[in-house]
């Protein structure tokens, strides 16, 4: 299988970032078709497509779209989660920079389908280039009557605003994103079943549809070419439909974004990225830093799909696929991952705030050569006490990679503790140490 470019088909054309270039390349066909349909018809197409959320969790998108009240009693909002922060992922950045109108069209279709008149794109503050690209595109869309009052003369209003974050991984969590958009510290809020779903009471306690950049970007294609057509992509998998963009980085010759059909073997993704550089393949984190690590042998047999990846005890996640060569010290990798989560934990709940710092301290003493017997079990114990007990999924995301690395490479941790130094001693590996 080769790359299957649907969302990224025109990403290399500079004119695709302009209104005229977008329309000339088939843009806005989806929206034009959508506004002629019943609102429910649009949602039914999304249902037929089998589209699942591309932000990491893989939740069926149509359930969210269908969840907003059909009889509108208060303003509805459409939010786009563009706070891409998962280490290893850079697909949303590229989609926003090179295909801004695709996202805008997708959100406008969503706005029509769920009767929202306002949409917000929450972009992380560092993504200035993406924000500028979207800003220009939104300005052009307004000027051409594709946003604002009476979109396409069909009597439906849709305003789209950009909102930039200011540096917080936690704001990529949907309830924390809403807190941040409302002007608070980016901390998660009570969730279902303890509080209503965002589709009933989301941002400003109004019905809210929130999806990832890539998810919205699929909508124009689903509506224009039909949900059934979209569902024919990835049909070899159990329940993953369409295409997925993978951001491949780490020790590969040709890092970048690659769009593939679900059902593609993981090793082909590695081949697309030019294979491993600097030595033999050792390990791979297939779906962003939160996902459990897999070994080279598992890379060989892994098939990309939400259910299929579970056979190697990992997940598709956000698609941030990092490959590591033989000079990679897994204990160091675990330490750097733990540092990330300790640094980004928002501090709201105790298991995550304290647990991530404990894991970091234990790993820090191991890489300083001061590890103690029993540290591995202690790490597993702490990780186990975070998992499933934190307020939001950041806690799980901090526990899984450490648990996964211990499960797959326990001998490296044991060697490090016993000898006070890493078992990966090549010159290349030593040069990477902080």
């Amino acid at each position, binding site marked *: 299988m080769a790359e299957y470019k649907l969302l990224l088909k025109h990403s290399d054309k500079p004119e695709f970032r302009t209104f005229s270039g977008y329309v000339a390349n088939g843009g806005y066909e989806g929206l034009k078709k959508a506004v002629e349909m019943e609102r429910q018809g649009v949602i039914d197409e999304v249902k037929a497509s089998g589209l699942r959320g591309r932000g990491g969790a893989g939740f069926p998108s149509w359930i969210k779209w269908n969840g907003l009240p059909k009889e509108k009693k208060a303003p509805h909002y459409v939010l786009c989660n563009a706070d891409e922060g998962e280490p*290893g992922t850079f697909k949303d950045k590229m989609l926003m920079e090179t295909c801004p109108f695709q996202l805008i069209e997708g959100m406008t279709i969503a706005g029509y389908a769920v009767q929202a008149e306002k949409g917000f794109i929450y972009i992380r503050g560092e993504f200035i280039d993406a924000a500028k690209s979207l800003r220009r595109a939104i300005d052009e869309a307004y000027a051409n009557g594709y946003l604002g009052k009476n979109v396409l003369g069909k009597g439906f209003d849709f305003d789209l605003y950009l909102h930039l974050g200011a540096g917080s991984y936690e704001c990529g969590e949907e309830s924390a994103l809403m807190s941040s958009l409302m002007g608070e510290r980016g901390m998660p809020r009570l969730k279902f079943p303890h509080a209503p779903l965002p589709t009933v009471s989301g941002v400003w306690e109004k019905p809210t549809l929130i999806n990832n950049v890539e998810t919205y970007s699929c909508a124009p294609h689903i509506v224009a070419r039909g949900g059934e057509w979209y569902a024919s992509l990835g049909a070899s998998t159990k329940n993953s439909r369409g295409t997925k963009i993978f951001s491949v980085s780490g020790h590969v010759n040709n890092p970048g974004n690659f769009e593939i059909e679900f059902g593609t073997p993981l090793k082909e993704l590695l081949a697309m990225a030019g294979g491993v550089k600097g030595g033999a393949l050792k390990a791979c984190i297939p779906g962003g830093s939160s996902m459990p690590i897999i070994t080279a042998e598992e890379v060989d047999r892994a098939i990309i799909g939400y259910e299929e990846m579970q056979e190697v005890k990992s997940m598709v996640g956000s698609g941030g696929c990092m490959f590591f060569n033989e000079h990679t010290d897994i204990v160091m*990798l675990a330490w750097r991952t733990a540092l990330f989560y300790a640094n980004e934990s928002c501090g709201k709940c105790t298991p995550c705030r304290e647990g991530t710092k404990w894991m970091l301290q234990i790993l820090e003493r191991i890489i300083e050569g001061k590890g103690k017997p029993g540290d591995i079990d202690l790490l597993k114990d702490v990780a186990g006490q975070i998992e499933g007990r934190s307020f939001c999924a950041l806690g799980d995301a901090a526990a899984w990679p450490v648990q996964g690395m211990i499960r797959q490479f326990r001998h490296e941790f044991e060697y490090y503790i016993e000898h006070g130094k890493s078992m990966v001693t090549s010159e290349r590996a030593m040069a990477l140490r902080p």
Partner: protein
Amino acid sequence: MSELLQIGSPNERPRPPKADELNLKFSDQAVKELEGLKTHYPTLKACILPALWIAQREYGGFLSGEAIAEVAHRLKRSYAEVEGVATFYTMYNSVHKPGKHKIEVCTCLSCHFNGAFRIRDYVTAKLGIRHGETTEDGMFMLEEVECLNACDRAPLLQVGDKYHGPVDEAYIDNLLEDLRNREESTVVQMADQIVQCHLETSERVGKVLD
């Protein structure tokens, strides 16, 4: 070792000004921009984040006690609430006054295993500053940051609104020389560009730069 978790301490918070010392410094442009922003959201509170970006530009890149007090005053929120928001997010400079340029070296996974700590140590050696410090001439501030999400360009660093990567020692030499004489990619300009990206055509006073 990484110094990421070691920045600022509670003792170093700027003091809030007393109520009768409030000295509003927003320019006419900033006031107009804030008025535009208020129409985007159903509440004034939601303007806190963008208003802090305006303040970061108006106060020369640093959210001092005065800057936070002005945002609180203009949005009718308490000082404590706005300070709480300002200190939560890493891109607001609420602890130290930053240098003219902020050099943010990513040391997260892909960058780490492509030599990011060597890059960080090189910048430290060359400029004599560590994580969170500013050079004596006020030109550069160094920060070690988490994933900038351009891992295909590892090892990567960000200066103001521009990403640079993959970088090596020679690239950094040229970049630092170049930045000394440049008015772009400054901390202030980045804040301005973020503000401009928020605004609709009719509300915009400044420009969205290329």
